[in-house]
């Protein structure tokens, strides 16, 4: 049996049934496997809350200090990259980081569904991140925000063309943020699926052979190593998204 590596990203709409009649019609309101993954992420968030507040001693527990150190790192990054006046954006920075991280890691659980492998989800995040930064820039800098599209020390003849290029690059930030995350997740999951499928197909040739079991131990180790790599990528993509968000946030606070 051959499985397509991309079928794991398919969304299955389900509908609830109570007393042999559907609660919601299938065409109007959907409860898909994607929504189920979102609900699981919510449980993760509540777990985080519970770990944070669960304290047996007078002083808080390990998870409290871990989370506090992560928050302080985010705050120091915000201050060093943008400035002290941008401290109010700590909430959105941390939300973006933990939201993407939790969804990425949940996708790696076997039989789980990777939410960030859906282009509409990452596109939503990218679009609203850049849209919010634009509004923030207009609020902070006013008309001077348009200086972003006018490069300095450039001949006047070249200026219109370069401005058009700058505007295109500004709009494409949305796409670059979203497609980077989406492509990394899809590529990693597809690779894992292909390797696992290959291993299982070879394994099914002779199930009883002990020799084959020993031989297949090495590919299984390789898949395990790639799984660890995927865990790293899940963390790294959340970090990259936040760092790029901070770099773009800098344009909303400082006019050049």
């Amino acid at each position, binding site marked *: 049996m051959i499985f397509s590596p991309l079928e794991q990203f*398919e*969304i*299955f*709409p389900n509908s609830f049934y109570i007393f042999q009649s559907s609660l919601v019609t299938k*065409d*109007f*309101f*959907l409860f*898909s496997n*994607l*929504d189920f993954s*979102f609900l699981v*992420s*919510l449980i993760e*968030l509540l777990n985080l*809350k519970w770990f*944070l507040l669960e304290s047996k*001693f*007078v*002083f*808080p527990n390990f998870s*409290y200090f871990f*989370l*506090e150190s992560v*928050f302080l790192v985010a705050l120091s990054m915000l201050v060093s990259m943008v400035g002290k006046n941008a401290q109010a954006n*700590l*909430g*959105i920075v*941390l*939300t973006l980081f*933990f*939201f993407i991280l939790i969804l990425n890691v949940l996708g790696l659980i076997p039989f789980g569904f990777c939410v960030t492998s*859906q282009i*509409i*989800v990452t596109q*939503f*995040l990218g679009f*609203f991140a850049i849209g919010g930064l634009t509004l923030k820039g207009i609020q902070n800098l006013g008309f001077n925000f348009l200086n972003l599209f006018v490069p300095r020390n450039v001949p006047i003849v070249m200026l219109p063309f370069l401005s058009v290029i700058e505007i295109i690059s500004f709009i494409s930030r949305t796409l670059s943020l979203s497609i980077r995350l989406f492509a990394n997740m899809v590529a990693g999951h597809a690779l894992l699926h292909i390797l696992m499928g290959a291993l299982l197909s070879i394994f099914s040739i002779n199930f009883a052979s002990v020799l084959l079991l020993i031989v297949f131990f090495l590919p299984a180790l390789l898949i395990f190593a790639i799984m660890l790599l995927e865990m790293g990528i899940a963390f790294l993509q959340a970090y990259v998204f936040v760092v790029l968000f901070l770099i773009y946030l800098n344009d909303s606070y400082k006019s050049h």
Partner: protein
Amino acid sequence: MPQLDFFIFFDEAFTTFIFFFYFYYVFSFFFIPLLFKAKFYLNFINKTLFLKNFFNASFSVSGNKIISETKYINKSLK
């Protein structure tokens, strides 16, 4: 292709919106105030004092030592 269905697209975007803003609500109004107000309360900046207190607290049985220390502090204050 079910992904091209408008309703599924709408559902995905709407679900992302709801969950993202719930995350934002939790982080902005719960985690950040809790962690950053507690920092001043615990004197977290003074690392040496923090470690000393932490080990005293964790090795003491049912917090007796803390109570005795508190009594001592109260006496000294008087």
